[in-house]
């Protein structure tokens, strides 16, 4: 990890840089997980950290996710700031009890005397041809768990900024990394990384007047592409990138929807019981009289994640987004 000048960087590189800078800035930051040391992680996000900071700071653990997270809880109790890597989304499930019953609750259980400043990094979502159990969108589980922050970057700069913010947070953060954006590139100067913004603010990635696409993580590029394509149909779409699912930025989202009067939530996670229901419901509660049409959802199907050769049929693409936009009762307009 030597310094590089401004040039295209991948999200994976920005994440590595964020971990490196966090470890350099604070000796309490420790990285642990399966294959994070010598190998640098199966996605190479922890590449070079063991070499630079030693194996005590970036540690290959035994293969046991509850043990990893439980150990991290104990480390946080003693004042460290552990960053746990779960190798894939579905392999975070063995640690579910530790996450829900301890990580999310320790501060509350102890009246604030025992906060747990720890970050759980989880590569999530599909689109990379992974075999079963390697492509789950598991965010619904985390956002239904009070006590956790849940964030997910969609750009290279946010990957850096949000991960720094997560590690700096005094509360546990589930940090969801969209697998299929690991290799997405952006001009980014690692020497001038984006300022670390506090967690909890959405951002308007594209302004528009016709309708709002509300999205996050892996679906942001899809929405931006859809917004471009929609111009041909005469729709000027606004795109909001949530960045943080918990806390939720009602202000930014509702301001946009009040302006446009129409909204579609887009995510890869399944529809039923997924984040889209929550988002649609809360937007509707707050913006009911501004809405020309119900808030629609474009999401993965309510099925187990498909095998690689069929995943393109599952993932919400530009066409489905445009199709939903078309169903936003435009006739009311004319």
């Amino acid at each position, binding site marked *: 990890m030597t310094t590089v000048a401004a040039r295209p960087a991948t999200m994976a590189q920005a994440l590595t840089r964020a971990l490196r800078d966090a470890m350099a800035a604070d000796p309490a930051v*420790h990285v642990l997980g399966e294959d994070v040391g010598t190998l640098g992680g199966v996605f190479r996000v922890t590449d070079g950290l063991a070499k630079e900071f030693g194996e*005590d700071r970036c540690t290959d*653990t*035994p293969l*046991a996710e*509850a*043990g990893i*997270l*439980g*150990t*991290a*809880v*104990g*480390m*946080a*109790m*003693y*004042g*460290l700031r*552990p960053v746990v890597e779960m190798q894939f989304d579905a392999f975070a499930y*063995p640690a579910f*009890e*530790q996450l829900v*019953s*301890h990580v999310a*609750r*320790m*501060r*509350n*259980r*102890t*009246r*604030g*005397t*025992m*906060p747990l400043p720890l970050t759980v990094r989880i590569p999530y979502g599909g689109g990379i041809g992974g075999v079963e159990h390697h492509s789950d969108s598991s965010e619904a589980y985390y956002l239904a768990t*009070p*006590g956790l*922050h849940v964030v997910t970057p969609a750009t290279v700069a946010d990957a850096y900024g949000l991960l720094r913010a997560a590690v700096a*947070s*005094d*509360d546990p953060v589930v940090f969801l990394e969209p697998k299929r954006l690991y290799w997405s590139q952006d001009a980014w100067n690692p020497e001038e990384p984006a300022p670390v913004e506090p967690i*909890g603010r959405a951002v308007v990635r594209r302004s528009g007047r016709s309708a709002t696409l509300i999205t996050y993580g892996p679906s942001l590029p899809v929405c931006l592409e859809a917004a471009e394509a929609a111009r041909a149909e005469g729709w000027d779409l606004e795109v909001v990138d949530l960045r943080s699912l*918990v*806390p*939720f930025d*009602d*202000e930014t989202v509702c301001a946009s929807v009040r302006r446009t009067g129409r909204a579609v939530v887009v995510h890869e996670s399944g529809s039923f019981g997924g984040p889209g229901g929550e988002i649609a419901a809360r937007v509707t509660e707050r913006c009911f009289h501004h809405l020309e049409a119900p808030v629609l959802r474009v999401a993965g199907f309510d099925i187990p994640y498909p095998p690689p050769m069929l995943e393109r049929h599952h993932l919400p693409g530009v066409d489905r987004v445009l199709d939903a936009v078309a169903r936003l009762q435009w006739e009311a307009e004319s």
Partner: protein
Amino acid sequence: MTVTEQRGAYRPAPPPAWQPRTDPAPLLPDAEPYRVLGTDAADRADPVLLRTLHTWLVAGRRYNAQATALTKQGRLAVYPSSTGQEACEIAAALVLQDRDWLFPSYRDTLAVIARGVDPVQALTLLRGDWHTGYDPYEHRVAPLSTPLATQLPHAVGLAHAARLKGDDVVALAMVGDGGTSEGDFHEALNFAAVQRAPVVFLVQNNGFAISVPLEKQTAAPSLAHKAVGYGMPGRLVDGNDAVAVHEVLSDAVRHAREGGGPVLVEAITYRLDAHTNADDATRYRGDAEVATWRGHDPVDLLERELTRRGLLDEDTVRAASEDAEALAAGLRARMHQDPRPDPMDLFAHVYAEPTPQLREQRERLRAELEAEAELDDEAEPDAAAGAVSEGGAR
């Protein structure tokens, strides 16, 4: 490693990876639980230690009775008694230094108290006014853990972190025989051994997990035999022999402190009361079994030894009993005061800063409480004062 006799032209190399990574023999427990009381070794027991243990065991027994009584008076939501297990509870607390950490399971309020935590705070969880009643950092006692075995990896992580920081800290983690079946037990012991974390795992094998007897829980020769599978020593001790438990745990703590890595201790004991006040133990065990164990009561065992050694004069007995009564009386008196947990606290500690969503919900509750208070004020002035404090606004 022996080498197979050379024969013929070809001889496979031994699998290169294979070397026994540790000598298993010293890791295996003895065939019988270690005992001191009633053996020759008892003569060597330090009289000061014997007396300290005795005072604590008597107090612990009284505490268990008092806490159970408080459930009948509606002053505790539930109480899982450690009557019969006092030797383990007390020894676990006494073998630790101030800087060490205790990781109790839900049954271990007595150990928590013996470590110095105010009994009322130790019972907060079971009284129901909050979850953890004490600041874990004050006496270095982790929250009582209700999800079984989940506290064990915490102990490992904490001990590991302390070692990384160069601090001389040992963690002692308590779990029941039932809890050893959970995956978290396995993962914690494995992590501890791999990292040589200074942790002592104390399994109180009290014969039951609620109604499930040990033989439905495991087919192992003993729970201590699990240790060798992680590469740590396993020790078996008579859990009703306070002196033996104290000695074995002290050795284990020393071993861990000196960098020898974790130790698994199985203490054979018995829960004389039902699982909790809400449980009916006659459904799953007979009086005869309980009677046998009453004949091996930890308090009796110790008192007989003290008597034999002439250390139990009337004054000592009276002092111990008075201490115990004082503890019980203080507890009774304080537990009969109505706690007034502040409803606004529901929002105070979910995050360092409440999310906008929680701020909204908090204000809704505040409005409700104010409306309630107004109604109450109309009905009986002053009664509801203080129900809404600013505590929740933090």
